[in-house]
Structures are given as C-alpha cells and as structure tokens.
C-alpha cells in the first residue's frame, strides 16, 4: 500500500466514530439520491413509454398547419399586398384522396400506417344515451400501429372483418351500461344517420376515460354512419424508431401537405415539464450530498488540527507540502469512495423496495407497481458526485495541512 494512503487510512481509523458519522452522511445522501432519481426517471420513462406505446408516433389529421396563401400573395410574395375580409373556403372535412396519400406515406422506410375515420356518436342502449368517439378502422392495418389488440378482454380486432356491423367497446362502458358481448347497440352520428352495431369485442387499457369513451368499428361502416364515403380524417403511424417521429412528421407534412404531429410535439408541454421537474429533483438531492460533504470537511479539518504534530514529523522526515495535501485529499477520496459504494448498495435496496410498492393511479383500474429506473448511469452520477463533494470538502483542510510549518510545531512542543 502506498505510504500516503496508509497514513490517510490511519488518520480515519484513529477517529472511528466521527469517520462513521460523516461516512453515513454520504451513504444516506447517495442512497436517497438514487431512490429519488430512480423514481423520477422511472416515472418519466414510464410516461414516455406509455406515450409511445399507446399513442400513435405520428398522427396526420385533415388540417393544415397554416392557412393557404391567397393567389395574390403567392404572385406578389415580396410586394405590398394586403387582403381584407377574406372569407375562409368551406372545406370538405377529411383527407382528400386519402388512398393515394396513404400510399405515399407507406413508401417511407420504417413506417407503418393505418387510415382512421374518427367522429362523435351517441350510443343508445336500454334507454340510456352516452357520447362516444367512434373510430372507423381497417383491422389488419390497425394491428400494425396500435397495441389495442393486446388489451382485448373479449373478442379480437379482426372480428370486425368477419362481422361488418360489429363494434368494439371499452370495459368501462360495458360495466357502466351492462353491455355484454353480442348485445346490439344503436349509434347515432351528427349526420343524422343511425345504425345498429353488435358488440364483438371488449378492451381494457386501464385508462378509465379511454375505456369509457372510445369505440372501434369497420372503416366502411363508420364512413356510412358519418355519411362520408371514401373518407378518412386521420392517418395513424407507428415507426420502427419512435425517436425519429419528429423528422418523419416533418417529411410527411412536406410530402402530402396535411398537418402531421409527432408524439414529441403533441406532448411538448409535458416533456418540458418533466425536464423542469428533473432539474428541481437533481438540485434537491444534490443538496443532500453537499450537506453531507460538510461532515467530511468537519472530520478532515479536525484531523488536520489534531495531526499538526504528525505533519511536522512527516515534513521533518522529508515529506513535502504536496505529500501532506495528498494525504488529506486521499482521506476525502476514501470517504467519498466508501460512502459511494455503501450508498449505492443502500440506493439499490431503496429502489428495490420502491419497485415492490403498488399504487392505484388516478384513472387506472388496476394497481400498478411504482415505476423505478435501474439505469447504471444514475449510480455512476451519484458516486461521482459523492466523490467530488468529498474531495471538494477535503481540499481546504488539505491545503491548510500542506501549509503547516514544522518549525512552528516543533518550537511549540519543545
């Protein structure tokens, strides 16, 4: 063992109780840092995973990002053109020539797409009415872009192919109205059309609101209900790499003109909120470690004061100021490293414990385990921060130790 390390260790072991107290500060700091970080990042990742899994990566709607330019504006783009009282054109809702546009989108690499005609409807069953969203889908395409099939409690999505009058409803709606498989429902559309649908499937996503208000039926059947033949008003896209959604949306918008919104754009307010939350969280948990580092400062300062005679001995033997500084910095490193290792073990235990707690989140029908993050990066971050804090706390006493003049101590002892 290096002689400086041996001296540093001897200092720490000679003040065992104080060393343990300051060490426990680091251990608790690292442990709670990891516990809080794991929960925060776990919930963030869980949230994003839910966004990615349950929502389309990109949604193309029958809207435009900006109003189209008037012919005069197009012709005299740089001229002083002012148009007043322009009457907006009455657009037929829906994506025009959606099949051709669907084919364009489909040709993009790593993209799966499904057309949807979504609209409002009123379900009447046993004399009771409820407003729902009716989505007209092509089951075989929907299977490629949605996880809804995994949430089916009864029936399958493809049953809509074999039963053109079929409808799939959520568990919450089924429970609330006592609707069972095979029951017939009357669905009225804003167009005035009323159709009878037979329940061929029930899903349960765990999201109460979604399970109560969302229904699925065959695209052609919904087009007839809404009186909008050959129309789709949404494209739902899934990508092989969800992180490329922003670029893919921009590309699609350029290709077909309609507004394409990535999941990142749709959730921008929430993701920026998560970033702010992370900054606050790391500031708070870092403060724990900074406070713990004062304990280390205290221990090493005391050791420097107590060991001035030893410093004088070492300097008279031939150790220089740099050696003395290294001894006390080493004490900081040892405390930081030991605290990090023990703190990581404690943190591991805290994360494990948190991961076993189940909660019933608002809107969820089933209890879910607390989302925790096990990533090694947060362990590395916590350990590095702890060691840096400890070395930082040791620096001032170490510098003071290095400046001790042996003659001053020897004169005092004589």
């Amino acid at each position, binding site marked *: 063992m290096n002689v400086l390390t041996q001296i540093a260790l001897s200092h720490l*072991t*000679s003040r065992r109780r104080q060393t343990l107290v300051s060490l426990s500060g680091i251990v608790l700091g690292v442990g709670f840092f990891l516990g809080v970080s794991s929960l925060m990042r776990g919930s963030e990742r869980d949230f994003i995973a839910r966004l990615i899994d349950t929502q389309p990566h990109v949604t193309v709607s029958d809207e435009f990002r900006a109003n189209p330019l008037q012919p005069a504006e197009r012709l005299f783009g740089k001229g002083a053109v002012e148009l007043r009282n322009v009457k907006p054109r009455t657009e037929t809702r829906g994506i025009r020539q959606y099949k051709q546009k669907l084919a364009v989108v489909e040709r993009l690499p790593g993209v799966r797409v499904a057309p949807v005609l979504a609209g409002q409807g009123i379900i009447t069953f046993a004399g009771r009415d409820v407003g729902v969203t009716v989505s007209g889908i092509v089951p075989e395409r929907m299977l490629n872009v949605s996880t809804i099939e995994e949430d089916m409690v009864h029936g399958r999505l493809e049953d809509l192919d074999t039963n053109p009058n079929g409808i799939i409803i959520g568990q919450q709606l089924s429970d609330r109205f006592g609707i069972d498989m095979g029951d017939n429902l009357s669905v009225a559309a804003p167009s005035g059309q009323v159709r009878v649908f037979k329940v061929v499937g029930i899903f349960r996503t765990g999201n109460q609101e979604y399970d109560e208000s969302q229904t699925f039926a065959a695209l052609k059947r919904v087009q007839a209900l809404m009186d909008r033949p050959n129309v789709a008003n949404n494209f739902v896209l899934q990508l092989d790499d969800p992180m490329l959604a922003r670029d893919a949306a921009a590309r699609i918008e350029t290709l077909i003109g309609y507004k394409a919104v990535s999941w990142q754009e749709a959730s921008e307010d929430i993701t920026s909120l998560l970033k702010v939350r992370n900054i606050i969280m790391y500031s708070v948990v870092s403060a724990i470690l900074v406070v713990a580092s004062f304990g280390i400062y205290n221990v090493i300062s005391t050791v420097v004061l107590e060991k001035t005679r*030893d410093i004088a001995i070492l300097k*008279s*033997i031939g150790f220089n100021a740099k050696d003395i500084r290294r001894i006390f910095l080493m004490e900081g490193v040892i405390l930081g490293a030991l605290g990090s290792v023990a703190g990581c073990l404690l943190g591991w235990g805290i994360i494990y414990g948190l991961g076993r707690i189940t909660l019933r989140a608002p809107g969820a029908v089933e209890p879910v385990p607390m989302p925790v993050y096990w990533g090694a990066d947060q362990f590395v971050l916590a350990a590095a921060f702890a060691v840096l804090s400890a070395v930082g706390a040791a620096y001032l006493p170490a510098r003071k130790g290095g400046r001790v003049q*042996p003659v001053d101590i*020897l004169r005092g002892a004589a």
Partner: protein
Amino acid sequence: MTRNPDAPVMRAEGLSRVLEGEVAAVLVREASVSVHRGEMVAIMGPSGSGKSSLLYLLGLLDRPTTGTIWLDGQDTSGVSDEEMARIRLEKMGFVFQFHFLLQEFTALDNVMLPMRRLGRLSEAEQRERAHGLLAELGLEEHAHKRPGQLSGGQRQRVAIARAQANDPVVILADEPTGALDSHSSLVVRDTLKRLATEEGRAIISVTHEARFAEAADRIITIIDGKVQAAG
C-alpha cells in the same frame, strides 16, 4: 568533481534568523558553524538562547534571514521548499526531545517511513533494513509494537533508528535526552556517539545536559543567538 575528504559535511556562514513583527526578534545572529563526518557536536546554551533555532536552520526546517548553508558541498540557499524536503529526506535524520513517532504506526512502520517515501529500496529490502536498525538498538522484539506500548527510552531509540533509515550524512537531535531518565539518556547518548564514530555520520545535538556534552567532540555555545565559542 572530487570532494575533499577533509571538507566539512555541513558548513554554515553568517546565519541569522530574525522573526519579523511589531518588534523584530533576533533568534540567531551571524552564526558560522562547520561539522565534519564522524564528528559529534553539542550545541549548548541557556534557555531561549537560540540553540533549537540554530538547529532548525541547519536542518533546513527553517530558512535563514541571511547566511548560507552548504550540505555535502551543495549550497542550499535559494532552493525550493520541495527541494529542501528532498535534501532532508536523503541526507538528514532528526531526533527530537519528544520522540515524535506516528502513534498509529508500529515501531517497524515508523522506521520504514522515510525509506518508503524515498522509494529507493524494494519493500522487502526496506523491511529488512528497518529490522536491522531496530536490532542494532536492541529493539527487534518490539518491532511490531506501537509507540504507546514502549517506554520513553525505547521510543527515543526507535526515533534514532528512523533517523538512520535513509543512511543520512547528518543526524540532528534536539534535546534527545531531555525527557528521559538517566539510564536511558546514557543509552541514547552512547548510541548517537557510536553512529558518529563507527558509521561516520555527523551528529549535531542541542543539549543542556553536561553528561551528554561530555561525549561530544566539540561544544558550540550560543548565548542570545550569538555563537560564543566553538571549542
């Protein structure tokens, strides 16, 4: 360059040490000293006369306000603190009134300390040399004891063993028998004398004990910081 064997191993010319302050205190004034290999020199004088201050200057633990010290032919004025530490490590050994051993280390570890810092010998060689030095001073069976488990005389002998660790040319001692009983004092005195006569080291020791000074080849008397006689 060949070195003159008759040249002093340590020579100081016109050494002064003044402590600056509201009233400047002169600790040592215009002291000139030379010591040869194999010579044991005692520095004597009344309390507060500047004996220890002169020793600290000669031991490069303090810097003179004026004057020059040559050690083994090397001019030490103007060298950095780091270089001064290096010279102490390689060429000097110290023995203080209060043994000044590291309490958490065993006698063996204390003796090995300068060797480990210098790093010239392998660990096995360091250990062997430390055992040898302790054995020469009759302390082999106490090698693994800590200072707290040793008597005052034994601790001082451990300090002497440590002072020899890096084979120094000069050993400086500050009242090495000041805290010992008469028997231990004689043992320490004789040990230092042996190091001078048998091993050819220069020994410079501050003392106020006449019995210790009797063993010295030369006595330097200092009063009010001024060397009165170097007989």
